[in-house]
């Protein structure tokens, strides 16, 4: 038995090339296996040309040769005009590393053989690294026989492999159907749009990538001034990574001395705590105390908010003697704020996790879980998304406080995401409620759940003054009135 001599090819057979599109390589399983044939499909306006050209410009900027062949598609001038709006566009590359050709005439005159000959000549002459064929649907529209089309696809695949040219075909189609354009390519990627009510989001789905372990399912992407940015679905990443959190036994305080005592020092580092309570009961203030304690210890902190804008939040903190502004100025504190309208939950989660990693954030305060859940568009996704998000935060050792609203009226607990209890998701749950005594609402706080043992499980009075939140002693409902009267008297004296 004789071993082949030129095995150097074998080790390169599955080497990957980066797409140059933020987030996309993670979906692809590391990048595109080189020298393969890919079909990028999607209906009009789905972003095919932008995505492919962004890949092309990225490679051209690295000195590689990129050919763009158009069949029936927008003219080269129009295409360049549209692309020039993106930051990746570099007109210096056009005519140098990026060459554009039209192939429709050859298709009309010589059929698929003519087109294949044109492509062969182009690749042989220019020795391209990347080939993009836009308007590939024209190949099918030229009415070839079924076997003729299959032969063409097979030959094209073989050609680009032989010429070491990674090739992208762009076609305005949808679905993973058994046509040769889909079956005889090495990778099939679909761009689509998902509509929920009046809102529309862009999604990318990888049906197949031969030689790569890609992420299954749909992933959201956005098209902005930098071109396409893909946000790999957090649930898929978390499932693949299976990162274990360190299960630290170190404690992180609430920033409220009385409550630290009652909870025997606070919550575990890296854990997640839900502050569940009625509107106006003091959830946000409690979260601000938690953040402030971290800032005063020199930690980096992050607030993710949906309703109260940063100026309002800073003013609110200042009213209880918590000065956040100086920590924003010195960079210890950042606030990510978005009204829960048409924003992508995937983009927001990505931004939050990236911020936490880059700044080594130790405390995160999410003010308004309801806001976060409101922007999860797909039915049934809230729970797995939140599970993945919290897992990612845990793996980064970020201690997280999350507020969740109880109804204005009545004392029933809210239906949690997908009607499942919070206890599975959160290590700790604090319940902040109003209790009515003699027609007056008073605040009370209790521990519903705390991971470590040894906490005082009784209800406690919760007071809010100019110095923020403080905790009164444990009392029964009957004694609450006396406690309030006593504290009011003390406040009047001071």
């Amino acid at each position: 038995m004789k071993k082949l001599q030129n095995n150097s090819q074998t080790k390169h057979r599955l080497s990957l090339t980066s797409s140059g599109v933020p987030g996309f390589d993670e979906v692809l399983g590391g990048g595109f296996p080189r020298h393969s044939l890919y079909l990028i499909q999607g209906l009009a306006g789905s972003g095919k040309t932008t995505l492919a050209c962004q890949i092309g410009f990225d490679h051209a900027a690295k000195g590689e040769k990129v050919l763009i062949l158009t069949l029936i598609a927008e003219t080269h001038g129009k295409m360049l005009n549209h692309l020039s709006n993106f930051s990746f566009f570099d007109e210096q590359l056009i005519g140098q590393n990026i060459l554009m050709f039209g192939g429709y005439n050859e298709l009309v005159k010589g059929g698929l053989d003519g087109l294949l000959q044109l492509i062969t000549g182009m690749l042989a002459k220019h020795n391209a690294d990347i080939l993009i064929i836009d308007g590939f649907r024209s190949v099918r529209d030229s009415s070839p026989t079924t076997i003729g089309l299959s032969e063409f696809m097979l030959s094209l695949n073989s050609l680009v492999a032989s010429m070491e040219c990674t090739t992208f075909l762009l076609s305005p189609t949808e679905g993973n159907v058994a046509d040769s354009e889909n079956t005889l390519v090495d990778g099939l990627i679909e761009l689509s749009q998902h509509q929920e009510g009046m809102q529309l989001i862009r999604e990318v789905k990888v049906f197949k990538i031969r030689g790569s372990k890609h992420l299954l399912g749909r992933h959201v992407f956005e098209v902005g001034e930098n071109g396409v940015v893909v946000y790999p679905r957090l649930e898929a990443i978390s499932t693949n990574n299976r990162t274990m959190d360190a299960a630290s036994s170190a404690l992180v305080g609430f920033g409220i001395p009385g409550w630290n005592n009652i909870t025997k020092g606070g919550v575990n580092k890296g854990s997640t705590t839900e502050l569940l309570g009625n509107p106006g009961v003091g959830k946000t203030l409690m979260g601000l105390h938690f953040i402030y304690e971290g800032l005063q210890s020199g930690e980096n902190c992050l607030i993710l908010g949906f309703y109260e804008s940063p100026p309002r939040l800073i003013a609110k903190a200042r009213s209880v003697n918590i000065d956040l502004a100086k920590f924003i100025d010195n960079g210890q504190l950042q606030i990510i704020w978005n009204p829960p309208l048409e924003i992508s939950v995937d983009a927001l989660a990505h931004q939050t996790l990236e911020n936490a990693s880059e700044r080594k954030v130790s405390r995160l305060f999410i003010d308004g879980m309801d806001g976060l859940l409101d922007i999860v568009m797909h039915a049934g996704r809230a729970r797995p998304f939140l599970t993945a998000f919290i897992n990612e935060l845990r793996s980064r050792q970020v201690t997280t406080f999350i507020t969740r609203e109880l109804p204005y009226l009545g004392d029933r607990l809210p239906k949690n995401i997908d009607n499942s209890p919070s206890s599975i998701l959160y290590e700790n749950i604090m319940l902040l409620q109003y209790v009515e005594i003699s027609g007056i609402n008073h605040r009370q706080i209790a521990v519903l759940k705390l991971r470590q043992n040894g906490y005082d499980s009784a209800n406690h009075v919760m007071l809010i003054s100019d110095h923020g939140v403080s905790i009164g002693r444990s009392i029964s409902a009957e004694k609450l009135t006396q406690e309030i009267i006593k504290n009011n008297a003390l406040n009047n004296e001071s």
Partner: protein
Amino acid sequence: MKKDVITKATDDAHIILIVDDETDITITYAMLFEYHGFRVSTACDGQSALQAINLLTPHIILSDYMMPLMNGAELCRTLKQDPRWKNIPFILSSAAFHINDIDTPYDLLMQKPVVFGELLTEVLRLLEKK
């Protein structure tokens, strides 16, 4: 980044016989070698190749190894035993990592997928050597 394009071999008008049971391979290489100035003849297995050789004597042969009816090793041995064809350079290519016919008198063995640039370099080298 790739190397520069290899110089064409148009002036010589060499004839290359490409033998492969995979149509896409013969179509692709035929077009590429034609682009580089070769005259190309193709066959889908060893037996067809023998018939083609009798009609048009090639200057060089590129053959797949695993083919129906007569494989590339058998074709190579047959030709190398015939005084009329024994001096024709014979490139054997295979998708397998190993071939069992260790005594095959080929001039060069290449593993598929063969990058065309490397193949062209070897073809030109063997023709020059001849």
